[in-house]
């Protein structure tokens, strides 16, 4: 009986780890960036999104890498058409600056929005979005660059501008303002395939009680396991390994389960 209770408690303590393909978009193309600088075209984003849905993705992230006003219509149209055939949650980020921008993206078919630059410049935006549309759709995107051991600075505008914000402090403040989730990208690891910045992920997951999506650096299954187990990430965003067919979602899900992680049964 005691053993059974213990087993049950262990099973129930952690939520299912979410496996999330991240699709960075530039104009009409799916791209893959290397440390947020060099870019390569990969293909048509909808084709990839459809395949990931069929393969059992738990969610999809679209991130507009250019995020100009000009490209906004292209992104909205992409979201609209994707939402007609992909029936899992879609998070959209890149250049959203106002609650009205958020509304337009939700109406197009996004379930959540990821906001970075505009929130670092005007943190009240987080509260406005959370109050108007619910905390659950307000994802704070943090692009983190290591400044010293165990210290990271948040960058904005696609990693081009510094904010002076300490990542852990910023995450806590955003939680207080009503952010429902954090998309945490290591700028140092993004595009390197050298693995996630585990210290960064752990520092943020320890500091907040909202879910944290680890992003940037996944090149192998071991990287995912480290982010989930040592980093205690709630969700894993992955790009290169999926886009280039290094690993497939069904295999990732199977291996995660073999290694004792809880994932959605499919």
């Amino acid at each position, binding site marked *: 009986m005691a053993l059974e209770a213990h087993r049950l408690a262990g099973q129930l303590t952690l939520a*299912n780890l979410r496996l999330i393909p991240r699709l960075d978009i530039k104009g009409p193309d799916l791209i893959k960036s290397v440390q947020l600088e060099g870019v390569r075209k990969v293909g048509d984003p909808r084709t990839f999104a459809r395949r990931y849905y069929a393969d059992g993705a*738990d969610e999809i992230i679209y991130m507009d890498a250019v995020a100009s006003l000009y490209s906004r219509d292209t992104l909205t149209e992409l979201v609209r058409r994707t*939402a007609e*055939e992909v*029936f899992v949650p879609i998070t959209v980020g890149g250049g959203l600056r106002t609650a009205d921008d958020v509304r337009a993206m939700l109406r197009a*078919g996004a379930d959540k929005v990821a906001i970075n630059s505009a929130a670092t410049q005007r943190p009240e935006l987080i509260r406005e979005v959370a109050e108007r549309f*619910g905390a*659950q759709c307000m994802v704070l995107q943090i692009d983190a660059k290591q400044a010293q051991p165990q210290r990271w600075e948040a960058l904005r505008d696609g990693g081009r501008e510094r904010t002076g914000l300490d990542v852990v402090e910023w995450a806590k403040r955003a939680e207080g303002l009503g952010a429902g989730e954090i998309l945490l990208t290591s700028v140092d690891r993004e595009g390197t395939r050298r693995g996630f910045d585990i210290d960064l992920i752990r520092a943020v997951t320890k500091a907040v009680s909202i*879910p944290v999506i680890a992003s940037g650096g996944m090149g192998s299954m071991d990287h995912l396991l480290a982010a989930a187990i040592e980093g205690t990430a*709630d969700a894993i965003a992955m790009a290169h390994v999926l886009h280039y067919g290094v690993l497939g979602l069904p295999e990732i899900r199977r291996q995660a389960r073999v290694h004792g992680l809880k994932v959605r049964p499919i």
Partner: protein
Amino acid sequence: MSKVTVVDYGSGNLLSVCRALRHCGAEVSVVESGAGLASADRLVVPGVGAMADSMRNLEARGLVEPLRAFARSDRPLLGICVGMQVMFDAGEEFGVHPGLGLLGGRVRMIPGSRGDGTRRKIPHIGWNALIPAARVNGWEGTILAGLPEEPAAYFLHSFAVDPDDDGARLAECEHEGVRVCAAVKSGLVYGCQFHPEKSGEVGLTILKNFLAL
């Protein structure tokens, strides 16, 4: 083809719900006022965000009484997420606010603290298996019929319903050690805390079941 009417009261997931229903083969019409409800075959009330906000929007569009009348009329009704929460007596988000009162019970915040004093993740975001509630004798004949084993659905919420009548609980899920009411049923009035329109093939099966009621 099944006809379904979706209530538009400004909810963010309106179009996602419509798209999923169309994908299931339904003929979907959208109504913004009470007038369209009288002739509806079946009704879906979507929802995201806060319950008080949603009630205000329903009131502003004159939908409160028509929704109550619809629920009494023995036609299928499905509330999704906050669209289900508004069907209850009252909610405790940003103060106590009355709901439509179609179902007895309250909408409460998921406890933020676990039994051992550690913090539970709120909002509850993610995929959880649906578990038959204690008083339910299987899901046959309900919108949860014919699902695979351990059917997982997508949840995105901080508040959960607590029905007065345990018999109204159709399904539950576990979120970090606490049982959360995942679906309710009272006659042909159904509610899902999860988002069937975002729950992959499991969710589409649930919507098809609703369309076949």
